[in-house]
Each structure stands twice: as C-alpha cells, then as structure tokens.
C-alpha cells in the first residue's frame, strides 16, 4: 500500500497529456494551438531568444548602414576603420574579439557580417517562399499544361546546384552589394519549396472542403488563397525556415569562394576566407565568425523543428517509453485502487481526468515522421 503512494502522482503525467488534447479541441483557433505547441518546444524557444539577442546585438552595436543612410551604433569601432593593432591583435578589453592583420576590430567586422547574413537570409527566405508558393500553387491547383510547363521549368533550375548558380550570380551581382545579391539569390532558391507546395496542393484540392467551397460558388482565387493555402501553411513555414538556414550557409560559402559579398563591405564567410591562413597565429579571426554562422544556422534549424512539431499534430513529441510504461503501471494501479479509495482527492482527480489505462496508450511511434523533408540543396 505504502509503495503505491509515491506513484499516485504518475497518472497526472498522462492527465496533462489528456488535458492538452482536450484543450486543443476546446474552441482554440488554429493559430492559438500552434503557438501553444510551439512554446512547449524548449529548444525552439531558446533558439528564438538567442536569435533575437543576436539580431539586437548586431544591429545596435555597429549601427545600420544602408546606402546613404548611416545610423551609428554604441560600439567604439566601425568595420571600415583601421585602428592601430594592439599587442599583435590579440583579444583585449579594447578589442574583445581581437583585431585582424591590419588592425580592424573583429567585433565590428563580425557584427557587420552578421547583419549581412541576417539580411540575406530574410530576403532569400521571403523571395524564395513567395515565388515557390505561387508556382507550386498554380501547378498543383490547375494541373494539366500549367503544371507541365512550370514543373519542367523547376526541373531545369533544380538541376543546377544552388552553390553553382549562386557563384555565377555572385560573380555578376556581387559587386553591387549584398542587397542585390540577396534578391537575385532569392530568385533562384524557390525550386524545392515549389515542389513541396505543389504536392500539398495536389492532395488538398481533392478534399471535401474544396468541393464544398466550389459548390458554394467560390472562385478559383478564393479557393486557393482562403481554403487550400492556409492548410498548406505548416509545410510552407517549416520549409521556409530550412531554406533560410540554407541561405545563410550558401551566402557564407559563396563569400568564402569570393563570389559573395565583396570588400570593402564584409560578411562572415569573407572574414574566414581572408584569414584562413592565419589559423596558426590568430585563431580568434577564425573562431568568432564561424561561431556566429553556426549559432544562427542552428537557431533557425531548431525554430524550424519547433514549428514542425507545432504545425503537424501527427508529429507531436511523445513522452519517453519509460515514462509511458510507468504511467501505464500507475494508471492500472490507480484503476485497481479506485474502487475503495475514490474519496481520496488525488484518485478522484485521476478518475475524472479519464486516466488512460494500458489500452489508451498512444501507438509507440505515432508521427515523429520527421519531417526533415524539404530538399537541402545547398553547399
């Protein structure tokens, strides 16, 4: 008897799950459900906070410089200034990230590079997602010759590895600055998303609610934008985040090869490229920009993972097998005890919360179909 008492708390684990299930059908909107699930994914939430901190740090420290507009930041140095190298450029109080071989402050350089990477990431994501959605939606919805033409066009672009086409673009547009480069990169980054959106549309357009909308007299545009697109939003958002993570890596890779951002402006890949020979003597020139690339890309990937869990209820994270087994045992114990201990508030609560018995256990591998689908066409 006494051995059972510590376990009486266990059914609440499954109660919590059950309550969540109940809440999800309790008049919450789709957006509210998604937000709730997203904030339960601690990895994604942490990543979001880290990413926000990086964005704030990058844009306040060295200020913003876009064309003629120039807003100074709080950091003493600028990425264009060449202060005298202090102590061979080793990190110091004055230059916490160190200085490069000609004395540029590495913190300022890295912050500017982070700005560039973030801007390129957002622009490529936006442009790529927009074109991908339009092309995927048109070919998936109308099928027939529209589909054939658009998908053959997609095939042509997808045959060229992104880093290759990016290098060609970079050698043409790299001199015009990161902004133009980002826009042109975005124009070629939509192919994977277009295929996925097309697939979603092909299956969604056969569903009953689309027939219902059509019978009710909805136009094609209305069906696409109001009925099908919201249902495909999960796939789109998740894969856009993957596209953005890929864009960061592609940009840094291109800058490394010399086809991305050009001096005197800077980027994280360019810093590494210019200093790769100095690894033996000045390793900090190498570690800091690399660390920022990895942290940004990792944050985006984790946010994408959290969004996937949030959007697809099939792919919900399950408690561990052991936790479920314990919960089963505890629930069975509770069920056995419930008969004569129903007056105990703990058991009453368990009984009310339809404590699941062994049969109620979710199938072991339900979902978690990971959906790391989404092609990763990147370098």
């Amino acid at each position, binding site marked *: 008897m006494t051995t059972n008492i510590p376990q009486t708390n266990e059914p609440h684990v499954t109660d919590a799950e059950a309550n969540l299930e109940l809440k999800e059908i309790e008049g919450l909107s789709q957006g509210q459900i998604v937000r709730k699930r997203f904030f339960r994914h601690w990895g994604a939430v942490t990543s979001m906070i880290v990413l926000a901190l990086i964005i704030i740090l990058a844009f306040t420290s060295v200020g913003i410089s876009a064309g003629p507009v120039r807003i100074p930041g709080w950091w003493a140095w600028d990425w264009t200034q060449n202060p005298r190298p202090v102590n061979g450029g080793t990190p110091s109080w004055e230059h916490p990230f160190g200085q490069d071989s000609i004395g540029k402050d590495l913190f300022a350089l890295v912050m500017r590079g982070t700005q560039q990477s973030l801007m390129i990431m957002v622009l490529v994501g936006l442009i790529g997602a927009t074109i991908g959605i339009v092309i995927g939606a048109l070919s998936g919805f109308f099928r027939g010759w529209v589909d054939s033409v658009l998908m053959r066009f997609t095939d042509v672009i997808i045959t060229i590895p992104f880093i290759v086409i990016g290098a*060609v673009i970079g050698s043409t547009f790299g001199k015009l600055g990161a902004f133009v480069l980002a826009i042109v990169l975005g124009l070629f980054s939509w192919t994977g998303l277009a295929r996925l959106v097309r697939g979603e549309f092909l299956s969604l357009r056969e569903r009953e609610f689309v027939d219902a909308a059509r019978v009710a007299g909805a136009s094609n545009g209305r069906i696409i934008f109001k009925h099908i697109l919201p249902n495909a939003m999960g796939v789109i958002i998740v894969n856009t985040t993957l596209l953005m993570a890929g864009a960061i890596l592609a940009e840094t890779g291109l800058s490394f090869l010399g086809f991305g951002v050009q001096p005197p402006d800077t980027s994280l890949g360019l810093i590494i490229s210019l200093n790769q020979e100095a690894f033996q003597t000045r390793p900090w020139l190498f570690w800091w920009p690399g660390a920022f690339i990895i942290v940004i890309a990792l944050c985006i990937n984790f946010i994408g993972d959290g969004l996937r869990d949030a959007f697809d209820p099939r792919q919900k994270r399950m408690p561990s097998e052991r936790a479920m087994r314990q919960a089963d045992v505890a629930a069975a114990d509770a069920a056995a005890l419930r008969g004569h201990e129903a007056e105990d508030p703990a058991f009453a609560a368990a009984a009310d919360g339809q404590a699941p018995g062994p049969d109620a256990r979710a199938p072991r591998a339900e979902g978690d179909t990971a959906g790391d689908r989404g092609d990763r066409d990147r370098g």
Partner: protein
Amino acid sequence: MATFIVRRLIAAVLILLAATFLMYNMVAFSGDPLEDLRGVQTPQTAQLIEARIRLLHLDVPPPLRYFIWLGGIGGCFIGQCDFGMTIQQQPVLNVLLNSMDQTLRLVTIATIVAIILGIVIGITTALRQYSSYDYGVTFISFLFFSLPIFWFAVLLKQFLAIGANDWLQTGAQIDWWVIVVVALVSGLFWMSVLGGDPKRKAITFALGTLAGGLVLGYMSMSGWFLNPRFILFGLDFSLLAIAFLMLSVALIVTAILAGIKNRRSLMIGLGVAVVGIALYYPVNYYLFNPQVVPMNFWILAGLAVVTILVGVGAGWVFGGDNKSVNMKIGGWTAFLVGAIMVVDRHMQLWQAYSQSGYIRGRPIATIGASNPGFSQSSFFVQGVDAFTHLLLPTIALMVISFAGYTRYTRASLLEVLNQDYIRTARAKGLTERTVIVRHAFRNALIPITTIVAFDIAGIIGGAVITERVFGWTGMGSMFINGLNQVDPNPVMAFFLVTGALALLFNMLADIAYAALDPRIRVS
C-alpha cells in the same frame, strides 16, 4: 520499364539542354572576358584581343555562341568531342579529363560513406527512439546541418591533419585520460544502442568500456598507429586479429539476415569466413603481390564480383530449403571478408608509406589529391596514398549529407514501424529481427532513395568548396577559375558532367523507387 527509361532519358536530355543554355548565358553575361587584356596598353594588346575574340568566338552574341558550343559537344556522338578552348588556349577536354577523375572519386566515396553511415545510425536511433543516444544523434545532426563546410574543412585541416601528423611523429602515444574518456563513451554508446533491462545495460556498459579501453590501450602501447599490425613478442600475429574480425563479420551478417539460432545459415556464414582465413596467405603472396599480378582497379572489381559469386554459390549449394536467404548471407560475408583482406593489404604498407622519403612521417595530407612521388608505385601504395589524401575532404563533404540521411532514415523507419502490417507481423509472433529486417527496413528504404538523388547536387556544390580548401585541382577549381575569367567553356564542362550526374542519379532513384514500391507503376 524500357519505355519509362527511354522517356526519362529524353526528358533528362531536354532538361539538360535548357539548363546548359541558361548557365551558358548567365556565365557569358557575368562580365568581360577581355578585361585583363584591356587593362594593359602594349602594342600587342589589339592583336591579343583579336586572337582571343577569334579563339572564343566572342564576336558572336552569347545566345548564339551557345549553339557553337553545343555543336562541339554534339560532336561527341560521332567521336569528335570538342568542349571548346579555355581562355589560356588549352582544350577544355584535356583539362576536364585530368580533373574529372579526382572529383568524381571524392563525390562518389563521400556519398557512399554518408549513405551507409547515415542509414545504419538512422536505423539504430529509430529503434532506440527517445533514448539519450537518439537525442544525442539528433542534436549532432542539427549541428552538422548548421556547419559551414569550409569552416569545418579548415578545422579538420588544423586538427586532423597537422595535429594528427605531429602526434604520429612524436610516437603516437595516447594519454591515459583520453583512453578512459573514449572507453567510457564507447561503453555508454553500446549501452544505449543495445538497450535492455538495467542489469543487461550495466553488463553491456562494463563490457563496452573494458573492450574500448583495452583495444585503445593496446593500440597506444604497441604503436599501432605507426604500424597497424598485431605484433606480440616481436612476431606478427595479424592473422589472428583478422580471423577474429572475419568470423565476427560472418556472425553479424548471419545475425541480421537469418538470426544466430539458424544453424545452417550460421554454418554457411562461418564457412565462408573460414575459407577467407585459409586463403589469407595465398592471396597475399600471389594475388595481391604486384610482382605476380599487375593489380588495377578493374581487376580488383572483377575479383570482388568473383568473391561475391563464390559466396552466393556456397549459399546456393548448402542453402537447404532456405536458399535465397543463405545466398544473401554467403554473398555479403564473402564480400566483407574480401574487403577486410584488401584493407589489410593496405595496412601492411602503412609503415613503409609513412616513412618513405616523400612523406617523412607526416602521412595525412592537407593539399592535393595525390602525391606525385608515388605515381610509379604499385596499386596498393597508391591506394594508401589516395586514402591519406581523401580522408579529410571526404569527412568534410560527408558530414552534412550524413546528417540528412540519419534524420531521413529515422523518420522513415518510424513511420513504417507505425503501420498496420508491422503490427500484424508482430502479432503473428515473428521475431523482432524478422519484423525489422524483412518488413520494416525494406519499406523504409523507399523514401530514402529519393533524397539520395537530391543530395548529389548538394555534395557536388560542397565539393567545389572542399576542393578549394584542400587545394585540389579538380573540376571545382576548373569551375571557379573559369568563372573568375568569364570563360564559359570550362564552367560548362563542369556543369555538363555534374548536371548529367545529378540527372542520372535522379533517374536511378525513380527506377529504384518503382522497383522497391509495387504500388508505383512506371508505364
């Protein structure tokens, strides 16, 4: 099937035509190919410009120039390939033939290693879902996804090449704390992969730690990394270690394909391994002796086929009433036993290789695809040389696609394990091994075939960067140099090969898909 393949081929050719047209024009419009000449004002400048214009047909506008280029490529069908000239007045075809070999080798090996490792680790994570091993691999694959390949390659160069060479030069001793840490990690790894109840886990952990510690300790003490042989009291007992390895391979293959309790299958597997052990000295003294057999890649490939056929034959002859499974066991065991022998033949040469005059005790290369000093050496020495040069670029290239394959395999296997037919198979009372190997794994493979095709494009892109970091003069550097000089011909040669490779893999994936999944009709 034939009409399907023909139709796909025609579509592939048309897509390649359109893609090359797009690429050609983009490269041709990306800058001015005469820029370097216009900068200098000498009496010959006008002449040089004139010569280059004639060489590269620069007086023809790019969209039309494309068709001149296409005509040259079309000549390949009548035996007169013309890939055009580079801006340095070399035929692109020669440059391509010199560089293609290295890049294709790199890409192929990286792809194959990534697929094998990714699928194996993906399966184990799916089978141990939500264990700490699973979470660890998940996190690592996220990290790999986010790694910039060039940054990682520079790190590899620093630590795995320069660091490892320093370490090899100073005696290759491992610190005791490294041995302890690695032993503990190996114990934890085996514990979480093999699983079971707490008692079994504890035993696995202890055995794993002990084995890891002993092996590493022995390797450190005997200088195994300098001369990878099993030497006791001055005598070479390598055959013992190899026999042990071959027998365990036979055991593992049998355990996976038929279960260890199946006596007949076990005997076939072990029998093939014993034949391999018996043939160890004859093979090493005659077949793998460059003075007897002038070994090259094709002979080795032929030997591999013969070995597999012998194994399959053994399975067929002694297979009893379960021929198909036993033939598979025989074939796989024979292949792996042969592979062990080939690897061992290379390892015999390791010490001589790393102490040779070209290497001077620093075997892991950071630059180039091969050491020209060994161009006259035997096949196996060149194999060691290729290994030391391929090691770092392959790791750098592999890491990203490896992450993708683990995630995909895991997801796909989990989805399959959740299907009704798996429940039916379990309910019939089949063993867990049969359920996983026969019912789940095959179906989980289907979606993986598609990402293999996708991944090729990514790996080729990565190869461009990796070649740059490791100073290879492969197709990647041909591409970069061509692009820098606004010279479309070498860029197009690069793209033609890689694009054709990508389309080929895409088509193979479609065919594999149709062959694996009977629901898909390809007519």
